[in-house]
């Protein structure tokens, strides 16, 4: 960039796996230059108010609204049919499973993507295109795993909240609590997490059907799913 000035478009796109990669703001690439400039302008103006009253909730709301606007639209996977299975009994009589695309795994049981030892979050982000070509690896997480033993890595989102409190995307503590309280009959002995940024074709044709079979064999009656 020595001889040419960076354009605004290049600047906003650089947050999406570019020189300023920041997965919280990768949505800027989805926006027109005009909408992105309105985001920055609004952010700075609201910051002026926050400097006076210390209330930063307006910044949070501005961020959430803009993110939702940037992702609006049906995306690549619109279907006409709507498969549906009713629950056959109240949950107090059933076995519930948990699956999240959060990228959590148990300490000492790293799925080692592409055979890499201790792949860092940064490396996972750098290899996002490779992840999108292969099928997802499933991490099996015993439901009694203490949250302190959970690790997380995911090339598609900012994992800091998932690290600080796994329950934000992988609500294992809450489900244990609700089982104790009797809201859920039984929690499946294993919960599952995988990195959602993956080949959708392979997931649909190979990995997904294998997971269905596994859940049927484990007699899981219903599944709570969290996309990240």
């Amino acid at each position, binding site marked *: 960039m020595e001889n040419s000035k960076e354009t605004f478009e290049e600047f906003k796109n650089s947050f999406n796996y570019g020189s300023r990669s920041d997965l*919280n703001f990768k949505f800027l690439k989805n926006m027109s230059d005009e909408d992105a400039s309105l985001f920055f302008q609004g952010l700075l103006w609201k910051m002026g108010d926050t400097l006076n009253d210390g209330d930063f*909730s307006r910044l949070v*709301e501005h961020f*959430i609204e803009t*993110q*939702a606007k*940037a*992702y609006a*639209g*049906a*995306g690549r*996977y*619109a*279907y006409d*049919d*709507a*498969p*549906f*299975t*009713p*629950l056959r009994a*109240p*949950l107090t009589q059933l076995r519930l499973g948990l*699956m*999240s*695309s959060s990228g959590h795994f148990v300490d000492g049981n790293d799925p080692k993507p592409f055979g890499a030892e201790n792949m860092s979050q940064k490396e996972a982000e750098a290899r996002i295109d490779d992840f999108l070509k292969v099928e997802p690896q499933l991490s099996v997480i015993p439901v009694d795993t203490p949250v302190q033993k959970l690790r997380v890595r995911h090339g598609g*989102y900012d*994992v800091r*909240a*998932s690290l*600080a*409190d796994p*329950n*934000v*995307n992988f*609500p294992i503590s*809450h*489900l244990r*609590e*609700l089982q104790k309280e009797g*809201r*859920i009959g039984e929690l499946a002995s294993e919960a599952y997490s995988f990195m*959602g940024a*993956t080949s*959708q074709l392979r*997931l649909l044709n190979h990995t*997904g*059907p294998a*997971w*269905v079979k596994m*859940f*049927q064999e484990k007699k*899981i009656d*219903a*599944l*709570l*799913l*969290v*996309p*990240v």
Partner: protein
Amino acid sequence: MSVGHVARLMEADGIPTVVIGVKAFRDRLVAMHLPRTVITPHPMGRTLGAPGDHATQRKVILAALDLLEQATSPDVIVDLPGRYEPGK
């Protein structure tokens, strides 16, 4: 939209599901015609609520479990009220 695909496969083969997703994913999840979806007013990567906000996280889970039991047809979307409140 991996989780949406998993939900569709499960439902087609007899396992009921409920999906909890953030507002930014709403249109995409709707387009996938999932059976039961709970939408939270939270940012991506903090689906159930802010780190440490156990009260909100628990409310979201309970809403999802209620929906799992109550839905009698597909395409049911529950938009949860409230705000994302970090630092609580």
